[in-house]
């Protein structure tokens, strides 16, 4: 620090000193809050109810072979259905045919605006009423896939539309100038590029679906059709102990945390890959 004309720090503190004080204050408040929660909690009750080793042992392997297995089946089938429908609706949304656009906008607004729970109840009770005697392919699994697909299609349609619109106009022009039809140019040139843009957001959508699959219980499940959440809550009430809920929760995190990590990685890679 040289120079006679360095102005005196405001309030008699240097910038560095002030910053240290502010940070120190923040830490102190944070630590105090954590300590308070720790001191107030009844650790013994928590331990017997949530971390009961006997109850944990009882859950395996069914929580994986039934619960996690069904959750994964629901999620993947719903995702595939939603992806196909979402792409279709995104293309309708961008179509020059007015009724297609109307339909797509109406679909997106309705299915984004409704709670997923209502859609599950509608699929579980409304569709059998509307089409008596017909059964969806896959039976119960088909119903869950349809409900999840209906919900996710609306979100994915908007994501895919944004991806398609992010592809520069010149790409379509170049494809058309080579003699490709509009449809061919979309299939071979525009959509493949759009999908690269939307893979990270679609991975996030997969995480959301994974959690929404717990709504399957509103369609009415048999013992072997239970997914993680239902499995956990059923066993909790059966045993009079909430440990199964904690384990079920951990099973979700085992899947969702790596997926979230993957989405962040893909996003970072894409940012770097841009020209």
């Amino acid at each position, binding site marked *: 620090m040289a120079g006679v004309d360095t102005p005196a720090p405001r309030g008699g503190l240097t910038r560095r000193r002030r910053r240290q004080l502010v940070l120190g204050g923040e830490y102190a408040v944070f630590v105090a809050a954590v300590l308070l929660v720790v001191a107030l909690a009844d650790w013994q009750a928590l331990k017997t109810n949530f971390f009961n080793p006997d109850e944990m042992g009882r859950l395996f392997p069914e929580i994986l072979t039934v619960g996690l297995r069904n959750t994964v089946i629901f999620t993947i089938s719903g995702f595939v259905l939603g992806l196909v429908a979402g792409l279709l609706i995104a293309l309708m949304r961008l179509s020059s045919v007015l009724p297609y656009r109307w339909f797509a906008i109406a679909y997106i607004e309705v299915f984004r605006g409704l709670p997923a729970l209502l859609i599950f109840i509608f699929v579980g009770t409304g569709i059998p009423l509307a089409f008596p005697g017909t059964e969806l392919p896959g039976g119960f699994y088909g119903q869950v896939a349809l409900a999840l697909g209906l919900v996710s299609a609306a979100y994915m349609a908007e994501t895919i539309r944004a991806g398609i619109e992010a592809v*520069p106009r010149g790409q379509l022009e170049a494809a*058309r*100038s*080579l*003699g490709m039809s509009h449809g*061919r140019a979309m299939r071979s040139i525009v959509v493949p*590029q759009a999908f690269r843009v939307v893979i990270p957001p679609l991975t996030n959508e997969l995480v959301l679906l994974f959690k929404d699959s717990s709504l399957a219980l509103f369609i009415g499940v048999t013992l072997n059709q239970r997914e993680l959440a239902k499995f956990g809550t059923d066993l909790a009430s059966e045993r009079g102990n909430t440990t199964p809920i904690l384990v079920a929760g951990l099973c979700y995190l085992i899947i969702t945390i790596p997926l979230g990590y993957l989405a962040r990685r893909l996003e970072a890679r894409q940012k770097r890959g841009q020209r």
Partner: protein
Amino acid sequence: MSAIEITGLRKSFGSLEVLRGIDLRVESGEVVCVIGPSGSGKSTLLRCVNLLEEPTAGTVRVAGAEVTDPEVDIDAVRRRIGMVFQSFNLFPHLTALGNVMIAQRKVLKRGKEEAEKVARQNLARVGLDDKMDAYPAQLSGGQQQRVAIARALAMGPQVMLFDEPTSALDPELVGDVLGVMRGLAREGMTMMVVTHEMSFAREVADRVVFMDGGVVVEQGPPAQVIENPGHERTRTFLSRVLDPAAARVGEIDRDTGKDA
């Protein structure tokens, strides 16, 4: 029959009339360079030839087929017209080879082997034998533009359209692209080139067309139009292009329009 026949062509964007009655013929094997200030409508004219822009009025015929006929199979006509863009517009998700193959495969329905053979020939023709497997992002601007030329040539076009092919390039890369175009001209390709490269126009063009304000102001052999223009507007434009430093302040603002 001319390779390209443009009659009474008009094009408006909303209330802005960009082309105000163009009549132009390009004979088979002829190289025509279109020059003019930005906003003069020269790019729009080129884009009307393969119907990337739909003309408001007038007709365009390419190799006998009327492009502007509502009943025409436009995809079939476009196969015969190669187009090279200012911004290259290579497909970033495909390699150089993939860029040159995809339309052959999907449009001409060529088999994989034949398409690859044609692609390799054309990439070699533009001097990129060693870049077949590179993605566009790994290539320089000049290399990308040459891939774009190869992509158009692989379709076996009867006519090639160039829309300011060197305007987006760093100065030291312009020469490679112009070299490829010079070679094409020598092989007898019919070419319509919108450009600001006066030395290229002077050397390669059979005819130079000067446009301003949506009309053809004058046209003729390069020696006549560039060396000895008959119109005042042509003279002003050329003096500015050939010696940009000579333009006076205030003069420049007038034509900083669109067209980029």
